[in-house]
């Protein structure tokens, strides 16, 4: 049976995971390793008056207590945001200083003040507790709207009024004019709730300084070890790149939160040098809530205009994005170029204008989290469309279909040029699978049982395959977003693929091998995927933004082109045939139409013995490629959610969830379905369960699983997942990417369904039973008043 493209090959990596034999950062043991614990601020905003570490330093087993001023004195640089965003008035963003260990001020609860290194985790924690920090507490602001008010506490000196940037996109005047002359206006205030990423494996690091070689090794939970090395070297001055090896071994989920370079990794590297010990740190769960970059947290107002035929004539959006206390690595891009560039949705809208204010608050830094700006965009678009349909009294599916982009390529007014898609086909497939026509009957039947049944659509589009380097460079990115690959054919004919992509749950070891299997007609067992080690892989940009298929595999494909070309030359030479007659199939190199062939291992051996290869050819069989995409890719789809609400309790059951996605070429349908299932769980989690809560003092009240609800199997329905795909013209494989779609498309479908059920559009995420019940009471009160 074929193991190539389209086959449901079981995941190769699952053997070690299912046997408990995965090798995660915390599993790494270095000789003479010590353990780190961090002294963290319990205050959301305070001046550090003094740090007394004498008692802690004297405790048994304590190697050292190191603080911010020492770190700065050693020349360790500030943590930076790698994407410069320019404000409306042409000024650059106001980035405040972020030292890995705080020097003069702390700006959120959890801000690291000192690192304690000791012989055991317990000794490190006890000593951390013994460090006495004298704080002068300052006023606190936790949400983006309050932070922009006059007189709000100022968090960074160089960001007056806490404004990091005031950015815009689209055409303001034509949009305002279109809205002014619109027949119908739909307006909505939208809050996208703040989320904690919660990968199953918390962040961890183990840093080793080798004094004899002036060399550092860092094992860390990273989605992009090369980018980590680059940034640690170029900006934080920990060590030059050739003296720093970064390894991201098995990583248990990331969802974006493991893209960034955090204070802890920097501090562990530095502390290893200071103490001459290997320094290991593993986050506990509450520490993860307090320090892993959060996601979302947008406050938005939107206004959409329609003409008399219900065609959209304009969309105006304002968003205040909470970026937390410091700017994380891609924090500026997430609420701007990854968000507002999708505010045309699946629709042909001539006039779109959006402005976004990025705002400092006394909260954990906010950055990309599964979907990264695109869930926020689809939530705005699809809540608006559903609201419009209700306001105009038309069918939500018809209103959408009337406004779909139908011809490709399609240039939107907000940068993106959609290259392919068939939005109506996805919608039709989803409606059929959901038996949309039969809904009213089901609603009546539910009413007899005392239940309120509702249905909601979400027709999402996202931009993946991040991204064309020149394009993102012109928009402010500090890096190019190409990917690299190396194909090594060994002398015995087995193959190693070295990739700059990083797998932390995506199944690359399986799908990447399937691509090679497809091209060379070899079993996937003969193919090994190597990733996550800067000493092995030449370079790479890592995995996020659903880019590893479209970009990472395209790089492999390009390297395979070169391997194939060389193999054909060797084959033609040895088999004494024309290169044009050589074919690669069945694990052999054959001369078309004859029985002459070299088995694959014979080809490898020929290349490496070099006894009989074409004159002038270099020995060996190893090729590499860098692939830079020509465009983003545009996965899209239609999700339909159907719910039943118990009006007595506000409890919502999702009784049906249909997902029809267009992902372009699919390598392994089983893995893609798994990705969609996981994404839907996270999206439904956002819509109904999850939410980070701060009190007015900046204390994070939801910093454990007692108060932060993650979706569980019994919160979720049996999904109906299906595909209706168009090929992506932008990359050699026709792939669009599937990693984030579920989390991007599902929240608006859920909220549209619940608001349909309860007859009240005023409902914010998470739609917990108490929130739904309160919204139902509003309806009752209003009805009574009338």
């Amino acid at each position: 049976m074929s193991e190539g493209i389209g086959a449901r090959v079981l995941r190769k990596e699952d053997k070690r995971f299912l046997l408990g034999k995965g090798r995660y950062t915390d599993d790494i043991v270095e000789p003479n390793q010590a353990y780190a614990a961090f002294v963290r601020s319990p205050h959301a905003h305070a001046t550090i008056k003094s740090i007394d570490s004498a008692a802690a330093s004297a405790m048994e087993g304590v190697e050292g207590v190191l603080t911010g001023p020492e770190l700065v004195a050693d020349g360790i640089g500030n943590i930076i945001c790698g994407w410069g965003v320019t404000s409306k008035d042409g000024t650059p963003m106001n980035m405040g200083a972020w030292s890995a260990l705080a020097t003069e001020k702390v700006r959120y609860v959890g801000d690291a003040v000192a690192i304690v290194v000791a012989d055991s985790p317990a000794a490190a924690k006890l000593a951390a507790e013994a460090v006495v920090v004298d704080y002068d507490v300052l006023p606190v602001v936790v949400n983006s709207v309050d932070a922009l008010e006059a007189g709000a506490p100022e968090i960074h000196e160089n960001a007056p009024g806490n404004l990091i940037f005031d950015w815009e996109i689209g055409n303001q005047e034509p949009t305002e004019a279109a809205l002014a002359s619109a027949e119908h206006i739909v307006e909505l205030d939208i809050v996208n709730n703040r989320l904690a990423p919660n990968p199953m494996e918390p962040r961890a690091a183990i840093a080793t300084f080798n004094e004899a070689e002036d060399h550092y090794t860092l094992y860390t939970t990273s989605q992009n070890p090369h980018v980590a090395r680059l940034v640690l070297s170029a900006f934080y001055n920990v060590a030059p790149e050739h003296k720093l090896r970064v390894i991201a071994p098995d990583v248990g989920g990331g969802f974006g939160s493991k893209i960034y370079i955090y204070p802890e990794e920097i501090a562990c590297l530095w502390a290893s040098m200071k103490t001459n010990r290997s320094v290991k740190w593993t986050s506990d769960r509450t520490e993860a809530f307090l320090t892993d970059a959060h996601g979302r947290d947008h406050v938005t107002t939107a206004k959409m205009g329609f003409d008399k035929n219900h065609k959209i004539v304009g969309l105006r959006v304002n968003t205040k994005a909470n970026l937390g206390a410091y700017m994380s690595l891609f924090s500026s891009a997430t609420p701007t170029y990854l968000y507002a560039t999708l505010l045309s949705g699946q629709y042909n809208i001539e006039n779109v204008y959006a402005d976004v204010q990025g705002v400092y608050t006394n909260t954990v830094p906010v950055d990309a989290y599964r979907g990264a700006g695109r869930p926020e965009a689809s939530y705005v678009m699809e809540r608006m469309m559903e609201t419009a349909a209700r306001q105009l009294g038309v069918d939500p599916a018809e209103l959408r279909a009337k406004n779909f982009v139908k011809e490709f390529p399609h240039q939107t007014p907000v940068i993106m040029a959609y290259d392919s898609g068939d939005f109506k086909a996805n919608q039709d497939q989803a409606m059929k699978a959901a038996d949309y026509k039969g809904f009213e009957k089901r609603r009546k039947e539910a009413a007899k049982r005392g239940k309120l049944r509702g249905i909601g659509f979400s027709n999402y589009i996202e931009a993946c395959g991040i991204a064309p380097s020149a394009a993102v460079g012109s928009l402010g990115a500090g890096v190019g977003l190409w990917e690299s690959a190396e194909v090594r054919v060994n002398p015995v004919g087995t193959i190693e693929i070295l990739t700059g992509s990083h797998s932390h749950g995506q199944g690359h070891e399986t799908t990447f091998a399937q691509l090679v299997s497809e091209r060379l007609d070899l079993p996937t067992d003969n193919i090994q995927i190597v990733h996550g080690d800067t000493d092995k892989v030449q370079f790479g940009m890592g995995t996020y933004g659903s880019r590893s298929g479209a970009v990472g595999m395209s790089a492999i494909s390009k390297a395979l082109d070169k391997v194939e070309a060389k193999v054909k030359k060797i084959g033609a030479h040895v088999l004494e045939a024309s290169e044009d007659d050589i074919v690669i199939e069945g694990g052999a190199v054959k001369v078309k139409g004859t029985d002459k062939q070299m088995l694959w291992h014979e080809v490898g051996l020929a290349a490496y013995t070099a006894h009989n290869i074409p004159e002038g050819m270099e020995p060996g069989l190893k090729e590499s490629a860098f692939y830079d995409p020509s465009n983003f890719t545009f996965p899209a789809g239609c999700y339909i959610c159907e719910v039943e609400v118990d009006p007595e309790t506000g409890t919502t059951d999702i009784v049906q969830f249909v997902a029809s996605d267009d992902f372009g070429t699919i390598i392994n349908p089983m893995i893609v379905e798994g990705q969609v299932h996981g994404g839907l769980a996270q999206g439904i989690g956002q819509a109904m369960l999850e939410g980070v809560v701060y009190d007015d003092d900046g204390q994070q009240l939801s910093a454990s699983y007692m108060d932060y609800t993650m979706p569980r199997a019994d919160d979720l329905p049996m999904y109906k997942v299906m595909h209706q795909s168009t090929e992506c013209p932008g990359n050699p494989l026709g792939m669009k990417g599937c990693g984030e779609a579920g989390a991007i498309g599902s929240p608006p479908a859920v909220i549209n369904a619940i608001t349909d059920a309860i007859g009240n559009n005023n409902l914010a995420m998470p739609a917990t039973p108490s929130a739904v019940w309160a919204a139902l009471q509003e309806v009752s009160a209003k009805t009574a008043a009338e």
Partner: protein
Amino acid sequence: MKLEEERLIDAPTNEVWNAILDAAVLKDCVPGCTEMTGSLDDGLTAVVTQRVGPVKATFKGNVTFSDVVQGQSVKITGEGQGGVAGFAKGGADVVLVPQDGKTLLKYTVDASVGGKLAQLGSRIIDSFASKMANQFFEKFQTIVEGGDVNDTASKASAKGGFLAWLMRLFGRKA
């Protein structure tokens, strides 16, 4: 959180007043208080061990008295550090109103917590504070109505019961 309550104590106002400012009384009334030292003028320090939900911690902190209107009202503020458990701070406005030879003790407490206490125990802080306040005044009332006040009051000039209660409530430590 904000807590506003009152309690009728069967004792003359001056006795109640003295008791409030008495560190020894305070120490007896504060659940979990193991140490209380200092004076009214210089402020009190106390050590209180308490379990708030999943967090058990020993708080050390200071208590100060301000806005003192002799025999009538006092504002007691305090804050305590509980190490990794975080911190607690708060203030209480106490007013004594004579009522037929008895004393109506009114108090308004404003409390807040930070760090692990907030992260793990926020859901139960209100009920915890309220329970602590009840226990404190139950004991306070017993002591005052039992006439032990003068004995204990003579032992120290500290101001404290309320203060200590407050302290322990807020986890301040010595």
